[in-house]
């Protein structure tokens, strides 16, 4: 079983939840930009949350499934179509042998995940299958997917086989059959406001900059990628300039170089940074920023560390609940 890349589109890479344990050697964590959509995509097809899946960026990607396959599409709505018919997101979908799935372009969001039951059979590099394109590490041959690539699939488990069988029965003359159950997650992705905890150097910014950061709008510039988003908007100035010792940064750290334009560090961020950190995006809101694309506008809303932690807990509970519900569903469907 395998997936063939007919067209890679703007950017398609194999991702998982990231490469942990090597930041001490400067190795970038990487992994899915919108890890919540990614995890649910895997859960929907019966995989472990961290199984490798394809991250599709914005448009143009076309994939062919060489055998009957159970898949799910989650994340941004990039208008996935099979034979001209839209494919619903956030649910298990059975696709027939030789079916071609294409992404026509963004309706909402910026990145979609295609998870396949069983995951991809590719080697792990430093405990991860995620592609770090800049470092030429992991994924499929350490690079973004190209036309003609053939990615082998791993074996499906009992859950996947059962759901596959159920959906296969629903299939009429079409090339695919979607489940009538889904997880309503897109409501977490389409916000314009991102919640932020004050960063370690917040107090070093001028009073004006502190106010501007939480009150004004910022725009995602074209110099944005999986490593980070550069924003334009009010220029955020320090009370007085100072050189900071490089220190660890995290997914969602907002740092400000001396030109005053903030940079949001994302999946492929460097492990350490030396620019003052004005804020840290709450993990629960990382999917919102990860689904924004150049030109989109964002506002930051201040929350406390306590609130950020509570949001984290709620989101984790919700994912666990969905896992349980899907397991029960699998038992009850025939």
């Amino acid at each position, binding site marked *: 079983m395998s997936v063939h890349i007919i067209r890679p589109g703007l950017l398609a890479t194999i991702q998982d939840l990231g490469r*942990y*344990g*090597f*930041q*001490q*050697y*400067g*190795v*970038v964590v990487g992994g899915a930009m919108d890890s919540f959509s990614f995890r649910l995509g895997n859960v929907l097809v019966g995989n472990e949350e961290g199984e490798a899946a394809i991250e599709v960026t914005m448009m143009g990607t076309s994939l062919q499934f060489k055998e009957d396959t159970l898949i799910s599409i989650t994340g941004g709505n990039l208008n996935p179509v099979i034979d001209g018919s839209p494919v619903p997101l956030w649910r298990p979908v059975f696709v027939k042998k030789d079916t071609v799935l294409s992404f026509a372009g963004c309706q909402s969001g910026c990145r979609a995940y295609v998870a396949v039951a069983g995951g991809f059979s590719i080697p792990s*590099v*430093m405990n991860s299958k995620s592609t770090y394109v*800049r*470092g*030429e*590490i992991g994924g499929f041959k*350490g690079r973004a997917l190209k036309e003609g690539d053939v990615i082998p699939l791993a074996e499906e488990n009992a859950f996947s086989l059962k759901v596959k069988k159920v959906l296969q029965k629903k299939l009429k003359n079409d090339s695919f059959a979607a489940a009538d159950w889904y997880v309503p997650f897109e409501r977490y992705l389409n916000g314009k406001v991102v919640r932020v*905890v004050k960063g*370690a150097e917040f107090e*070093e910014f001028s009073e004006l900059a502190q106010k501007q950061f939480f009150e004004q709008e910022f725009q995602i510039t074209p*110099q944005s990628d999986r*490593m980070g988003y550069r924003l334009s908007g009010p220029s955020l100035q320090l009370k*007085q300039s*100072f*050189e900071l*010792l*490089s*220190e*660890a*940064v*995290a997914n*969602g*750290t907002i740092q400000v*170089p*001396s*030109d005053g*334009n903030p940079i949001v560090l994302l999946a492929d961020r*460097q*492990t*350490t*940074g*030396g*620019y003052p950190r004005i804020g*840290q*995006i*709450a*993990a629960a809101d990382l999917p919102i920023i990860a689904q924004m694309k150049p030109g989109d506008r964002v506002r930051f809303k201040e929350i406390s*560390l*306590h609130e*950020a*932690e509570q949001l*984290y*807990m709620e989101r*984790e509970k919700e994912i666990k609940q969905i896992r349980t519900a899907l397991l029960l569903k699998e038992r009850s469907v025939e």
Partner: protein
Amino acid sequence: MMKKNSEEIQMKPLGEAAITVQFGTEINSFINKKVKALATKLQRESFSGFIEFTPAFASVTIFFDPFIVKQVYGEIEKSSFQIVQVILERMLETLVEEEESTPRIVDIPVCYGGDFGPDLDFVAGHNHLSTDEVIHLHASAEYPVYMIGFAPGFPYLGGLSEKINAPRRSSPRTSIPAGSVGIAGSQTGVYPISTPGGWQLIGRTPMALFRPDRDQPSVLSAGDLVKFVPITKEEYEQYQERLQ
């Protein structure tokens, strides 16, 4: 300048899932020894919910999963940050600083200036020196590796002469070629892979500092001593040919 008492250990959150233990705000071997001691300790004994750590010049950042921390050490009134803080405080009480061993010296060949070092003139001008003086000063010191970070295998080096310090670029470059040698403030380093960055670039090395296929992917490790050896453009090209 923001200055804090370097004796004082501070713990601060980096979001809801990480905590930074800061031993000071200066680059010196006394503080760096503490960083190494905590890193060693974390490698030997971790805690439930621990993910990994990132050591830096004067700090160690510990990443954890708040959900697991709360589940395992479940105290309702305490946040996961507070719980991890207590665990780390206990670790700090019993830190053992390692005996110093003879450091390994690693020679890194560098072709200075020209297309390889577009900011060499800026660094020279900023410090009222000639470019040759900058090269001489940069290549005549031995630099201790304080940490590996920022990018795979990127060494942060101490010991840069005050005479050739230079501020970071006001806006980082979107792409810096692999092997670029740069200066930022009182730090110098080498970019092992092509990446965006804000350092002033003074030269380039043909040596690969990051080898993902090895068990220890970084050529340099904290504690090594680095020496930069000036080479010509011809020697740079010969070195590259030998690699292939």
